[in-house]
């Protein structure tokens, strides 16, 4: 799968059930684990096999910042981090020890650590935050859009900064924690091209970086958290073929690997040999993007019919080997806004009736088929389902690099692809339902509900309820049609400890803090 695509799918996720049980949307994996801090051999080394390589190690200027985040995480700290908590992923302190959002939601005050040194010896303080945000919003930045709402950074004293926002945007905290926009670069290196020579304060320093082979990191012994890096050497190796990653894992060449289907399903059996199998649900779903401006899809009955025509259970079980649980709403299980009460039955008769009622029977739909597994096969299943309820469907096969730009140019009815979700429901709505991947005009009602929900304080019950309401509304009045939740499967050798910490939320957000190997 391409780096770009992964980045899209994996864009930042959040809140996954970290209960270790076999929850549909939550994590599947080991139960009780030993404490990695105690068990790890600090002189050990860990090799992780990934499916694609990186472009750049510059957090603010990488052409594929989301995809490259994985390689930058060992090297750079952010103000806030993400960790698996009891109720899913949660924001945790990193360079900021705490934060406070004002009552009107327009300012966020961070208290900063005072004991942080960059690898190059420069000190971290509030003025460094200001300079970094300026860089991340600068003309050469590729991540500026994430910080759109952030108007100004005010330095109060060396350990306090205030972020002034144009409008209340609680999700900004998630953006800072999961993307690369919130990564802090040494003040000595702000003007430099960091694509090959990073300058961070993270738990590892860079030994060597090959875009096509191995990226090797070494523990930085002066790091402020002595338990963050539990291995002496960390290697992320690029192995595009999932078979090769799987075989390398079984022959001990890799300690951990990112697996996709079909090996993602097959590897579950390795648990009997002591391997750790982690499967974590993300905020994105495989599904169908619809163009609501393109008749007959401008009629909500037709969109609802499409949602009813898809047999989610069967697709999840058969086509996706049970690795991706069914998904019927914009916010997946384990994420803010998910509503357990939502039900979208498989009902082709009702679907056909709705299509008839809308006078759309026999209409030809042009559907983009993304030629990356499993979306390519999923598109064929969808084609059959839509033909069964009275449409004529023409698939346009496009490569993963061509598909999304073609979709965004408009002119197609639908695309079978990951329906991208993000850490926070407001971001999911923004990128997929209101703008971005939604090439049609969003329903007025949705716009109004989204506007109201966005400013509600992070973590509040009102916010949860407001987004649940949107989730239920969108299940009844679909804009797009989610089918099965995207999951990330990481398998590691028995000797690896702290595997629960590997998938903090998603693959691009994979982090190797508190992950080690026993002797």
């Amino acid at each position, binding site marked *: 799968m391409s780096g770009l695509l992964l980045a899209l799918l994996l864009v930042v996720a959040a809140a996954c059930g970290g209960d270790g049980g076999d929850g549909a949307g939550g994590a599947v994996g080991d139960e009780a684990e030993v404490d990695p801090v105690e068990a790890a051999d600090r002189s050990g080394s860990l090799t992780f096999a990934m499916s694609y390589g990186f472009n750049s190690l510059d957090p603010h200027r990488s052409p*594929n910042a989301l995809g490259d985040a994985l390689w930058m995480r060992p090297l750079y700290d952010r103000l806030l981090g993400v960790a698996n908590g009891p109720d899913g992923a949660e924001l945790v302190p990193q360079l900021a020890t705490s934060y406070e959002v004002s009552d009107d939601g327009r300012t966020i005050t961070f208290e900063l650590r005072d004991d942080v040194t960059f690898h190059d010896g420069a000190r971290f303080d509030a003025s460094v935050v200001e300079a970094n945000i300026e860089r991340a919003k600068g*003309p*050469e930045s*590729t991540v500026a859009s994430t910080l759109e709402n952030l108007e100004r950074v005010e330095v109060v004293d060396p350990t306090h900064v205030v972020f002034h926002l144009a409008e209340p945007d609680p999700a900004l905290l998630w953006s800072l924690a999961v993307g690369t926009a919130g990564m802090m670069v040494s003040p000595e290196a702000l003007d430099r091209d960091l694509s*090959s020579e990073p300058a961070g304060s993270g738990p590892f320093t860079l030994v060597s970086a090959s875009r096509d082979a191995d990226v090797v990191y070494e523990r930085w012994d002066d790091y402020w958290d002595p338990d963050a890096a539990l291995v002496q050497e960390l290697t992320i190796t690029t192995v595009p073929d999932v078979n*090769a*990653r799987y*075989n*390398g894992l079984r022959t001990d060449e890799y300690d951990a690997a990112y697996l996709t289907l079909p090996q993602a399903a097959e590897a579950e059996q390795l648990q009997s040999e002591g391997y750790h199998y982690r499967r974590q649900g993300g905020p994105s779903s495989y599904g169908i993007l619809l163009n609501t401006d393109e008749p007959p899809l401008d009629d909500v009955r037709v969109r609802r019919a499409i949602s009813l025509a898809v047999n989610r259970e069967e697709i999840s079980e058969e086509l996706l080997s049970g690795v991706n649980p069914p998904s019927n709403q914009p916010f997946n299980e384990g994420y803010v806004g998910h509503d357990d009460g939502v039900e979208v039955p498989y009902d082709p008769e009702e679907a056909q009736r709705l299509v008839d009622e809308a006078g759309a029977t026999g209409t030809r739909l042009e559907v983009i088929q993304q030629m990356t597994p499993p979306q390519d096969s999923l598109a064929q299943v969808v084609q059959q389902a839509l033909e069964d309820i009275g449409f004529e469907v023409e698939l346009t096969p496009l490569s993963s*690099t061509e598909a999304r730009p073609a979709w965004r140019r408009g002119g197609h009815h639908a695309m079978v692809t990951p329906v991208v979700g993000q850490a926070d429901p407001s971001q999911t709505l923004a990128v997929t339902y209101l703008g971005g991947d939604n090439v049609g005009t969003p329903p007025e009602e949705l716009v109004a509900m989204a506007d109201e929900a966005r400013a509600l304080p992070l973590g509040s019950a009102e916010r949860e309820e407001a987004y649940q309401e949107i989730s239920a509304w969108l299940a009844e009045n679909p804009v797009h049609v989610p089918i099965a939740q995207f999951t990330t499967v990481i398998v590691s050798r028995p000797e690896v400890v702290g595997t629960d910490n590997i998938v903090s939320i998603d693959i691009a957000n994979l982090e190797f803090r508190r992950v080690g190997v026993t002797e």
Partner: protein
Amino acid sequence: MARVLARRVLTSIPALLGVMLVALLLLELMPGDPAEIMAGENATPEAVQMIRDDLRLDDPLYERFSRYVGGVVTGDLGESPGSGIPVWDRISEALPVTLSLGGMALVLAVVVAIPAGTWAALRRDGLADRAVAAAAAVLQAVPPFVIGLGLVIFLAVERAWLPANGYVAFADDPYEWFRHLILPATALALSAAAELARQTRGAVVDVLEQDYIRAARAKGLRDRLVIGKHVAKNAATPVVTVLGLQVGRILGGAVVVELIFGMHGFGALALNAVVTRDIVLIQGVVLVSAIAVLIANLLVDLVYVYLNPRSRA
């Protein structure tokens, strides 16, 4: 010989220029704006414009072409936008892997195929001939990745006799270098060997029917001498031609085989270039592949000259 070499090198230049033009045209032929594609979906207009300036996409084609040719001549294949890494650095990092793999595959193919083909020809229509023909047919039909996967599962994963993945530089550890290459080189060599064996058999059979062979035998020369001296040299021409063609095929096959064996070679680089939409790198990969095939053809031509003095004219 030197004159032949000079002439062949000169005639390769137009081909090389053609390849460079095609490589450059890749940018033009892509649907959409190359700068936008390379910049990624979330890029600001400024970032797109920077790539556009970097690649000088606004210049006329002939200017870009002459600049590209000038760069290639001085060993500069450009830089990947956004990373600032010279393309040549990445290619030169990957080339030793593929050269080792391809070289060993070629050696393996020759070592297996030429004796097998000769043996089959000498026992024409006998059991050996049929066996070689059958094996060749099967091996030619099975794609290298199937053979590769089979080898990995049986010899690396289930039995741990050989490593399943990776590559160790010869300079670091010659023994491990060899061990890591056995499986991928075998996977790559088998279909080449099959074709080579068939060609060898055909060529040897042809030569064996020639009058001069009959004369040599009638003269009382021993079989070993007849085959070693008269048959081998005369049958070699078609075999060398096929061998030359295999270089291109092995290079193509290496893309898949390197993937299966997790080797960071030229094939994996080519794939990564496509996946990351790094058009400058794709151009470099196309150019270097073309040069490799041109060099192979050149070597074949030189061997012809050696084998057949008449072609020196």
